[in-house]
């Protein structure tokens, strides 16, 4: 017989009666409230208990899915301070472990660019500030100005312009000289009392406009 086995016979009945009477008499809530639970817990060596427990075996027996189903993840995440968490993360160390080439090889750049709103991006660019940072002299030093001018046909344009200006000037001189010719010849015709119809304008084989 163990200490938990009920007593036999009348003695057992008496004991049960006494126990029932005691339970009825006791004010259990009052009794519980008087217990120093914190003091009891302080006396418990949780570490020792944990050491004696086979946590792995317990976890293996636990239905983790059921446990996770009962967890309110949103609520849990709401209690997490992301900044504090990120402050504890060594980003450099994290990045060192990342195979960037592998990541980039999985990126569809065309698709990425198609999703970029270029107009919006450009609106956010301070072009003046950008240009101020550019060393124009250094850029121009790298520009093959001569080759550029050749490809743009600038020498031909300059040559044509110069030729056109020279031709215009020569034509002006010629026009003045022709005008003076006409004035002088007209004066001579008056002195000689010749009619204009008596004087041929040009050789017979040459028609008006100088065509033969």
């Amino acid at each position: 017989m163990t200490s938990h086995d009920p007593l036999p016979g009348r003695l057992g009945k008496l004991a049960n009666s006494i126990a029932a009477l005691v339970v009825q008499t006791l004010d259990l809530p009052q009794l519980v409230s008087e217990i120093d639970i914190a003091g009891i817990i302080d006396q418990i060596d949780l570490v020792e208990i944990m050491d004696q427990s086979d946590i792995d075996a317990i976890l293996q027996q636990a239905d983790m899915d059921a446990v996770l189903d009962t967890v309110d993840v949103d609520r849990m995440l709401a209690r997490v301070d992301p900044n504090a968490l990120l402050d504890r993360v060594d980003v450099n160390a994290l990045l060192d472990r990342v195979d960037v080439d592998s990541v980039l090889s999985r990126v569809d750049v065309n698709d990425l660019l198609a999703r970029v709103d270029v107009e919006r991006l450009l609106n956010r660019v301070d072009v003046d500030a950008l240009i101020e940072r550019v060393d124009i002299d250094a850029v121009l030093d790298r520009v093959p100005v001569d080759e550029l001018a050749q490809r743009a046909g600038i020498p031909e344009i300059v040559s044509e312009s110069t030729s056109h200006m020279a031709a215009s000037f020569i034509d002006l001189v010629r026009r003045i000289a022709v005008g003076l010719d006409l004035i002088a010849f007209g004066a001579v015709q008056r002195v000689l009392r010749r009619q204009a119809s008596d004087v041929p304008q040009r050789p017979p084989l040459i028609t008006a406009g100088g065509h033969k």
Partner: protein
Amino acid sequence: MKSSRQDVSGNYAGAVTRLLAHWVDMAVVGLSFVAITVALDYVLRTIVGVEPITDDRGPWFALVAATWLFLYWWLSIAIAGKTIGKALLGLRVVSRDGGILLSARSALRAIALPLSYLLFGLGFLGIVIGRERRALHDVVAGSAVIYDWGPRTAELPTPISAYLARKTGDLTELERD
């Protein structure tokens, strides 16, 4: 839009234009002759080692200069129908009827050119008073000089064109823009 200037292409060239062209030609001939003699002098002295006779301005020198003048007038007109001065002023030498001047006639014109200078330049009087505005050397060679500005139209200045238009009443040809 029609030009407001009267077209004179192919017309007989007048005295002013021909005089200017002649001055240009004289300058070209003179300068080129000096350049050639200087170059020749340099070659003779430094390369050949001959001392040229520089003080002599006698008949040989005149003959060389005259030859140079002849070659210039003959070859330029025989080949192109114009000298440098004539090209600059927009003139062309043609035969009297307007055809191409043959090489022999070009040579004859170049030879006869000095004759126009005789008697105080009386030979040039024909350019001023002649109906076909031909000088003595033109008469000798059977040539005439006309306006020819190449691909561009030989034109009178606008005011003179307008004056002629009013005078002749040919407003359709000289309609102003």
